[in-house]
């Protein structure tokens, strides 16, 4: 088996190349992010978390939602090391991570992690939210190794 590749620092994808769109179900998440407040969609009736936000709770069918403020910490569930910027195919080391959000069991986010070399990212690693300004005045939650 070949040796692990030494990639160096994991970068965040540049915010100016990132777009999002919203709908009435997802907009409260993104409005909270503008205020640097990490939330997740929680059923106001039974307390079940779901991400991305959807119209109905898949557990109890309620459409009442709450948007609690989460601690902003998370655990890496899995990841991939990428080496080309998808916007222009130029060399660029970034690490998409799937994270479990503290305080919101079952809710995950997909983001980038920074503050660590790409080859040192590990499943189970603790991370904390880091806010990235993106197109349209929106703000994206990314994560930094702690």
């Amino acid at each position, binding site marked *: 088996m*070949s040796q692990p590749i030494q990639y160096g620092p994991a970068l965040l*994808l540049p915010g100016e190349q990132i777009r*999002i769109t919203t709908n009435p179900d997802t907009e409260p998440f993104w409005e909270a992010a503008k205020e640097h407040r990490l939330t997740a969609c929680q059923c106001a009736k039974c307390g079940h978390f779901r991400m*991305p936000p959807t119209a109905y709770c898949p557990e109890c069918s309620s459409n009442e939602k709450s948007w609690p403020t989460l601690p902003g910490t998370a655990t890496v569930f*899995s990841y991939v090391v990428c080496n080309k910027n998808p916007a222009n195919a130029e060399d660029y080391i*970034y690490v998409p991570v799937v994270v479990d959000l503290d305080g919101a069991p079952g809710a995950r986010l997909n983001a980038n992690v920074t503050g660590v070399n*790409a080859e040192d990212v590990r499943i189970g690693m603790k991370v904390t939210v880091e806010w990235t300004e993106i197109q349209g005045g929106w703000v994206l939650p990314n994560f930094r190794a702690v």
Partner: protein
Amino acid sequence: MAWANQDKTAIVGIGATDYYVRGKSWPRTINDMAGEAILKACADAGISVKDIDGFSYYSTAGAGYLDKFDTASLMETLGMPNVSFSATLTSGGGGCPGAIGLATAGLVNEDCKYAVTVMALQQLPQHRLGVVFGSAAPSPENSFLQPSGLVGPGHLMSVLARRHMHLYGTTQDAFGEIVMATRANTHNRPKAVRKAPLTKEEYDASVMLADPLRRLDFCLETDGAVAVITTTMDRAKDCQHKPAVVHACAHGGQREWGRAFAWMGMPDPHFASSGHKFTADRVWAQSGLSAKDMDVALIYDHFSPMVLMQLEDYGFCEKGEGNDYVLSGKIRYDAATGKGVNGGVPVNTHGGNLNEAYIIGMTHIVEGVEQVRGTAINQVKDAEFALVSGGPASLPVSSLILRSA
């Protein structure tokens, strides 16, 4: 309990164009290639194209990922006088073998007499499949995925492979063995895109595109078309070849898999899986068979780790043991004996999407038909049962067991 439609229909015709490297089929049009595949499938069955009165698609009737099939246009092009069944499975390539179950539904309901399932794929320079997710403006749903830079299927699949490596100690050596073992089946296949035998050194030197996956862990990008004709058993007996009997077929899946790697919310153990456990269990229940009863397995291989995870979900080995199963040689085909190796079931005797061609699953159906007919290039001796899988991707995924007549 046995499936109500067990052995009531059969695939009687198969047809395919040449397989072109991505972008090389131009100036042919996608309908030109689809028409060739359908006409060849009819000739293979020994019927007229004008006998076709059913269309059973998958991938939401997609032709590739950007074009759509339209039954009326195909009738206009090929001259079918009537259509009495026109339907599709939803989502993407996961439904490929499930489309034969859909055809069966139309046939046993006496809606139609001969149903065609077709896929055609053509990538023009501005239509690159690998960036389909990344080039589209993100929907509100996809705004929770695309900003992370998870834009290509290879990125998405790597996240699942990484979790599997973490949970079970799975190695990149196993991914390499899947590519090498199936590559060993293409040297004698005239239409295969990649025919040269592959060494471990060459695999290890393959460029890392989405760590832990290398370029050779990614399937080919192919232009071309494949069509198959399904009909009832009584009509199948009058066709040209031995029928490939539809013994079991299921599509669907469970909510824990759902949108899969377009979502990333799957709990363990579903996350590091192929999402096929549900349809695998259904075809085993429909047939009373299990993995060890299969003579050959045509397993959808858009990315090498997904073969390993399907081997687990179908029960060729236990969950978490895919690495050792693969590395013990058990997916290999032994040409000298026409059998498997080390007690295993040969996988992708046609070379699969990784080595032969990628027509979104249809080449696996064709190989399954040829195996149970007894006419495959890499024929498994006395092949009675062939498993064909589709996906793994957003639900539905699907599974098919073909039986020799």
